[in-house]
């Protein structure tokens, strides 16, 4: 019963269920579209200025989309009381955690991929700096949000007001990651500085917090 086999099975199950029901996906896609449109009303910059604030704008929009996805992480497990069945099986808690984190990661990346062209269109964005760097920035940044988000979603399962708790716990701890994402993106868009420092910061942040979440998730799941 290899660890990876369980991760793959759980991830495949989640994706199949998500694809089969589709209602969650459509709701979140529409939500992201709304966020982009509202942002473009709220901030109406000219092309030159937009490069400076676009980094912050895009990532706050992505943060909204991520929160909506993360709030749903354990919804299905709770509805069907399946966590007990999982805890009774010899499968390790971390395989469940990783499967859920990857599932969320794919979900948020899909939303981001659909929101980005809209942002580019609405703000006539073009990167002066090395545009290919935006890919690692997006991946590392999204993973930073998702790994902590999945962990805190599991914690807020056990608290009273679940939906409020997740952002309350996630945002303060994600400030360094948010700073990293926003500044790296702005650096690439404006091309004034190199995003090198921010990318290394994101890598360090991801490594430290992924390990910490893996070490602590077992105790959270078993906290009866």
């Amino acid at each position, binding site marked *: *019963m290899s660890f990876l*086999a*369980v991760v793959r*099975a759980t991830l495949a199950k989640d994706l199949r*269920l998500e694809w089969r029901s589709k209602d969650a996906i459509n709701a979140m896609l529409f939500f992201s579209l709304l966020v982009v449109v509202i942002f473009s009303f709220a901030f109406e910059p000219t092309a030159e200025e937009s490069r400076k604030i676009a980094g912050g704008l895009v990532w706050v929009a992505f943060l909204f989309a991520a929160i909506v996805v993360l709030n749903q992480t354990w919804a299905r497990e709770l509805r*069907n009381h399946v966590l007990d069945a999982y*805890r009774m*099986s010899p499968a390790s808690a971390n395989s469940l955690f990783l499967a859920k984190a990857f599932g969320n990661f794919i979900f948020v990346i899909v939303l981001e991929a659909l929101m980005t062209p809209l942002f580019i269109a609405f703000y006539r964005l073009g990167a002066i700096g090395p545009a290919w760097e935006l890919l690692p920035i997006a991946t590392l940044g999204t993973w930073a949000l998702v790994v902590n988000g999945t962990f805190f979603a599991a914690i807020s399962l056990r608290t009273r007001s679940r939906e409020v708790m997740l952002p309350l716990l996630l945002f303060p701890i994600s400030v360094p990651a948010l700073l990293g994402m926003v500044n790296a993106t702005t650096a690439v868009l404006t091309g004034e500085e190199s995003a090198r420092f921010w990318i290394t910061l994101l890598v360090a942040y991801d490594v430290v917090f992924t390990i910490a979440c893996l070490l602590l998730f077992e105790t959270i799941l078993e906290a009866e």
Partner: protein
Amino acid sequence: MPISDAPPIIIADGVIKQFGRFAALRGVNAEFAPGRLYVVLGDNGAGKTTLLRTIAGLAQPTRGTISVLGAKEIKTVCSQIGYMAHPSLLYDEMTGLENLRYFAGLYGIHNDAANFTCREAIISVKLDPDLNRPVGQYSQGMRQRMSLARALLNDPTLLLLDEPFSNVDFHSAQEMATLLGQMRDQGKTLLVVTHQPRLLESAADEFVWIDSGKIVDRTSKLRAGTQ
């Protein structure tokens, strides 16, 4: 006390379980011998489900200890335990076979071995493995039997069943009861929490009565007048 000389499969020693101020279990001392079918009775809130969850390792006792299959740490023996609870522990959006194949994966049974085991388990509870409807659309009787099939996947030596017959039609309940009896004959140990003990009157070895968090009586026969 247990007749057979084999070591007891479950030993509960002074188990107290408190949720904040409410004490669900107030000191349970009991031993359960292997290869027997125990029926756990008591009215609502007596602590039957809490006791079962504590034995299953899903709840930690506030005080006292529980050892199951000779181990204090449940993770080491959980592959030999089958657990079934009232809400069906199955994904409503998936069909029975898909559910079982996923959970078989958790127990390390993969691909063709899984296919065979899952179909076997479904057939043993008298359901059609190729039924293409998601579990959410099953009748309550079918859901409970599919949930029982899930608990049988890893061929457990110890079966913990919480209200397996609840709102199941009489006919399917009868079939499940005989099935539980057969499993006991194959040497499995069963602990069944239920409000309908009469279904297991012939099959059960011992009836365990629980009242306000304590085991108050253990009889081999059902007392007259129980529902």
